């Protein structure tokens, strides 16, 4: 009787394991439960019954009865290797990076098949065994229905903004396995789109005040989708007693990590977190948050939403043991396409319908969009998610998962764009990536002829206009200093005034928005209806700026031309600093500089 029960146990473990194979395509809810049952029942059976039995069995037949059965030896060896590999898979996992994980997986799979065969061979009383196996097989095949109806029904996600906080898996949860990526993201601008971005908070508040609170949804669609879909009417911010929590300078998303530790998955992460991008399943490249995030229709592992230490640990182990489905849930071929980014990086005013940001459309028309020519073709992530070193793109080899596969060109999550300032307040490394990227964008040349300075600026690196994005709030301009033979400054342009604003003569590359009456919109950029001016430089184009200089100059002349960049004009920062007094002023960044001498 005892041997029979041991056989049943082993067959049970075998069948529950076999059901986990891909070929069976079992419904996820069932799959989840079976994997749990397989692991934990196996551990219990192994430790309590099978190991003691095998010890006794070996002692009885080899030591006492001196039987030398090769099949028995093989069976013992297989059982040992399956046990060891099973424990390895559970405790360390098959994350892809280490050879032992792969070996363990294969040993566990193929070993169990061999084990099943040799078990049948090993047993003398074949009839009972066969009967037991067939009963189990029949039961395994017979349909087992769970309450999975709800799960399959929820193919389209809730559209009534009634998601639970838990649906938006907190990014701090991803940190435990994707440490490097988490750190890059934590200091990037994608993390700091809502409460930790003072400019955004002030402008969202302003939009809500001027246009009514419902208007905030327009902002929140891209900046705070998690808040919007969980029913928040406005973006919130963390407090520290009576004061605003100082998130502007906070490194590595400390508040987020601490909040998650304390409150667990019910703590809502506002802003753009891991799942926001990694659960997007459909996009329309219209802009204004034209994407679909599927939060419910996803294969969550057992304990994935648990909070207690032990269940969290187990949850991680279960993912590590069999990460394929986890990987599939969070990646998509779509993510490599530019149209994916377009769902937010294109923007039009909901009031006037005018395009405010058209980065994607600019790229679409540029030479960077050439799908037939793979060498020329560059998508968003080829520049904005590729590591830069010494001012050049140098794809970084590294790990996206701790202990995972080594990837040759890992897509870094610094999201280098143009806002070096806000990410730079948190991490210099992050700022550095952005500055390097910015400096690849343009080339300068200068000439003096007939009492005129000719400065050429060419957009050589950007696959879109220069500048792009919120081009009304970006300052890109030429700073010129011309000195005569005695070293006296005889002409200058684009200098800063004492209050930090630019002088009126500065030549800016930008877009100026006017409202319906043709007046500059100021902070209320969504009121844009009439374009007042557009001096941005399209991809690949060269713009020549001409300056008149006085006659009768004493040569040789020396000229310094700088292409300067400032992320927000001083007047915008001044306004925001009224609400956030701790906000420093963004510095002027020198992107390119040339010095030249002219000897008549």
């Amino acid at each position, binding site marked *: 009787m005892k041997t029979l029960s041991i056989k049943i146990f082993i067959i049970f473990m075998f069948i529950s394991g076999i059901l986990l194979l891909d070929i069976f395509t079992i419904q996820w809810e069932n799959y989840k*439960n079976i994997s749990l049952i397989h692991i934990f029942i196996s551990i219990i059976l192994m430790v309590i019954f099978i190991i003691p039995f095998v010890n006794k069995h070996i002692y009885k037949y080899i030591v006492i009865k001196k039987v030398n059965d090769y099949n028995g030896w093989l069976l013992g060896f297989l059982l040992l290797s399956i046990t060891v590999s099973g424990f390895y898979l559970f405790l360390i996992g098959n994350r892809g990076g280490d050879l032992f994980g792969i070996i363990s997986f294969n040993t566990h799979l193929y070993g169990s098949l061999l084990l099943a065969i040799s078990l049948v061979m090993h047993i003398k009383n074949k009839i009972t065994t066969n009967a037991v196996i067939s009963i189990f097989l029949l039961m395994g095949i017979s349909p087992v229905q*769970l309450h999975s109806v709800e799960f399959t029904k929820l193919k389209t996600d809730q559209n009534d903004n009634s998601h639970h906080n838990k649906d938006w898996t907190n990014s701090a949860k991803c940190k435990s396995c994707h440490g490097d990526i988490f750190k890059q993201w934590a200091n990037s601008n994608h993390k700091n789109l809502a409460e930790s971005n003072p400019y955004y908070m002030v402008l969202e508040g302003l939009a809500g005040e001027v246009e009514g609170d419902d208007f905030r949804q327009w902002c929140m669609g891209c900046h705070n989708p998690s808040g919007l879909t969980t029913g928040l009417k406005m973006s919130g911010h*963390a407090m520290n007693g009576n004061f605003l929590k100082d998130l502007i300078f906070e490194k590595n998303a400390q508040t987020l990590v601490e909040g998650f530790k304390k409150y667990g998955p*019910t703590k809502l992460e506002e802003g753009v977190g891991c799942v926001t991008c990694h659960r997007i399943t459909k996009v329309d490249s219209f802009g204004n948050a034209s994407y679909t995030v599927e939060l419910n229709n996803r294969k969550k592992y057992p304990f994935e939403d648990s909070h207690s230490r032990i269940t969290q640990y187990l949850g991680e182990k279960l993912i590590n043991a069999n990460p394929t489905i986890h990987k599939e849930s969070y990646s998509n071929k779509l993510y490599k396409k530019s149209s994916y980014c377009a769902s937010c990086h294109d923007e039009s005013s909901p009031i006037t319908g005018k395009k405010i940001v058209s980065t994607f459309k600019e790229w679409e028309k540029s030479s960077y969009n050439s799908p037939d020519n793979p060498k020329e073709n560059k998508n968003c992530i080829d520049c904005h998610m590729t590591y830069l070193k010494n001012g050049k793109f140098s794809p970084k080899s590294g790990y996206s998962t701790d202990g995972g596969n080594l990837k040759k060109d890992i897509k870094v999550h610094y999201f280098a764009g143009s806002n070096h300032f806000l990410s730079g307040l948190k991490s210099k490394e992050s700022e550095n990536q952005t500055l390097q990227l910015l400096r690849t964008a343009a080339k300068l040349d200068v000439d003096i002829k007939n009492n005129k300075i000719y400065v050429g600026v060419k957009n050589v690196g950007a696959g879109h206009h220069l500048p792009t994005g919120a081009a009304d709030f970006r300052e890109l301009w030429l700073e010129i200093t011309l000195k005569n033979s005695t070293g006296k400054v005889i002409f200058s342009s684009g200098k800063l005034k004492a209050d930090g604003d630019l002088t009126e003569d500065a030549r800016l590359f930008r877009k100026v928005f006017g409202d319906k009456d043709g007046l500059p919109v100021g*902070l209320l950029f969504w009121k844009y209806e009439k374009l007042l001016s557009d001096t941005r430089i399209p991809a690949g184009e060269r713009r020549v700026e001409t300056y008149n200089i006085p006659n009768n100059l004493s040569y040789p002349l020396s000229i310094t031309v700088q292409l300067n960049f400032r992320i927000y004009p001083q007047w915008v920062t001044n306004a925001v600093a009224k*609400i956030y007094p701790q906000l420093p002023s963004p510095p002027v960044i020198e992107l390119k500089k040339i010095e030249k001498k002219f000897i008549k």
Partner: protein
Amino acid sequence: MMFILLLLPNILPDRKFIQYNDDQLREAALSKGMKPIPKNYDEYLKVIDNTDNILTKEKVALGKKLYFDKSLSKNKDVSCATCHMINKNSNEDVLLKSLTTSSDIRNCASCHIKENSGTDRLSTAVGTSGAQNPYHLNTMTVLNTSLAKYLTWSGEISSVEEEAGASIQSPFKMNMSPKEINQRLNSNTKYIEEFNNAFKTHSSLQSSANYENTKIALGAYIRILLTRGSYDRFLDGDNDAINAKAKKGLASFINLGCKGCHTGMSVGGQVLKRFPLKNFISQNDIGFNFPFILSDNSFPFDNVGGFLGKDNDHYFRVPMLRNVTRTSPYFHNGSVFKIKEAVRIMGQNQIGINLTDTKIDEIVEFLKTLEGDIVDYSKDIKSNKESL
């Protein structure tokens, strides 16, 4: 064994819960003492019994003026409206003004004043010259307070007039003595005139501008600060006023026992209750809660300020839940910032139930329906002449 386990959900019958339809839900709510805020002033007079402070147009107008007057505080730096934030001119774009011009509005107020929450959204109340509440107490909303039986966290005060006086005299609020108030008011001829008008003093030698009348005038204004929202419309008979999730939340609110304390037209403020009521055994569902260990002296959050309620006995006034979603942070010292967390704590410590996330979501959805806008009764209030 595995298959039996897997089959269990199919074998076991589903639990049946009482399902209310909309009308039953409304009936249940009304029968439990929940009442809508009156729609207009005629109804107000019918529903609200107020014989202590008869409202007149002049009195309310004077009260409103005093409410926003900083000269009632020692340093002339705070008014009632500084902490009990109300937007005086509802058409004004406060944030836009404070961003583009040099205005004196405090940082938080520029964004939050439009919410009309009647509170400052800070953890600890800050009074004249930056004095903080010694117990770290949180400012309560002024809205709907005239409906409450008890005022302040320890519930020692029973009328809005009394509270207005207490706030004026409190050293960490306005810090003014009645004498100083009398002096300040009487140095302003406009005030003397308005007081005399409001309190029907016809002799030009006498002045009604005094501390006692200040309390009454402020009280008159505060008495009409009532808010109506979708919850009230639902109770009035509009089934579409609140969504299905909020209805579920309301049902839970009634069935779980929340309404036992948060009751009346004000949804709270009618009783003093012990908090925390139960020591939720190791915050889990295991074990029995014996009746003799009802009290536990630890708070489910950091009790900054060490306030222990009335007579240091953990007795607190049950807060009013109207506009609760606009008045974070929560609890007496503002230690809890998120409404969901506050609901969870209340479930665990007051009704002894570990609320599921879905339940919490539903209850919060219901609490959102308690948000409301101030009803404009002032236009129908009779002036001195009319009431004669």
